[in-house]
């Protein structure tokens, strides 16, 4: 399962991601974040490796594909945060595959600190969060 997930290069720059926009405008990530409307919080815990999505794809791959499409149609509007037992901001638009547990509370706390002026945040999660 890990082999399938390794096809996703965390260094890849998704078209329309905050890093892509920052690079094209020659500005910092903090400046590109000014135009973001939404934070998408993506579960990248071990359970997301399950290949039980349509077409035998892993849940993680489906999430990455959908996020890439979303950022492409809404360039510079989506901030991506990946979480499992830790939380990582992914400005390149690809939620970093971490594996491990599910610290949803930590992810929401992290996202709250970054949510000023945003209209919404969305959580993509398929498992039960770890108990506090």
């Amino acid at each position: 399962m890990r082999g399938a997930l390794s096809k996703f290069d965390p260094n890849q720059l998704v078209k329309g991601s905050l890093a892509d926009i920052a690079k094209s405008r020659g500005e910092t990530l903090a400046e590109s974040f000014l135009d973001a409307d939404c934070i998408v919080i993506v579960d990248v815990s071990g359970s997301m490796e399950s290949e039980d999505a349509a077409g035998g794809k892993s849940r993680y791959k489906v999430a990455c594909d959908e996020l890439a499409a979303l950022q492409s149609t809404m360039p510079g509007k989506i901030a991506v945060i990946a979480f499992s037992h830790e939380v990582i901001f992914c400005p390149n638009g690809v939620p970093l595959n971490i594996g491990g547990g599910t610290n949803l509370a930590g992810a929401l706390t992290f996202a709250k600190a970054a949510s000023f002026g945003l209209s919404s945040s969305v959580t993509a999660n398929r498992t039960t969060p770890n108990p506090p």
Partner: protein
Amino acid sequence: MTEIRLFEVRYLGRAKTRMDGSQTAYGWARGSWSVAITKAALHAWFGVSSRPGEAGTLYSTLGVQPTAGADEIKKSYRRLAKQWHPDLCREADARSQFQAIQHAYEILSGPKRAKYDAGLTLQASLTANRGAGAAIDDEYGYRAPLRCGHIMGKGTRQGSRFIMTEILQWTDIFDARGQMLVSSWIYGEDKPSERWVMP
């Protein structure tokens, strides 16, 4: 021996790497390059992170700390706008510098500041080696937002030059008529160009 000295710096150059490996900006004072300010001292004074891979911020563009209040931001903006206004400053990139200053003030003086600060929080959460933006230094070395002033700082004397490692105070230079000095150095000329303007 560490001393505290005050210099009337008529022009401050870029912080470059010198032959001895130090990174300093030479200041023209008392008719010679008699003071050198370390890049670290300039970064500390103007709120610039010296960590590799970290970008300059809109705060460092205005030469203020991220904790600066609205009045301080406004005061710094007015000061820099005078120094870099294309009608007053004769340096080749004055217009782009002036636009950057205006852009920074527009964000930091309004409701977008909180969102920008949130973006800085996200940016800072990235590790240095993943890169968080463009480097603050260009290929010619770091240039401080201000290029002249009465600068007081701590340092030591090395030969004929005072090496300033900590800046304690930086105020504008005014003449007897209350006009402020705006200093710039045009490429190819042998000395800085000075203009006096009303603040």
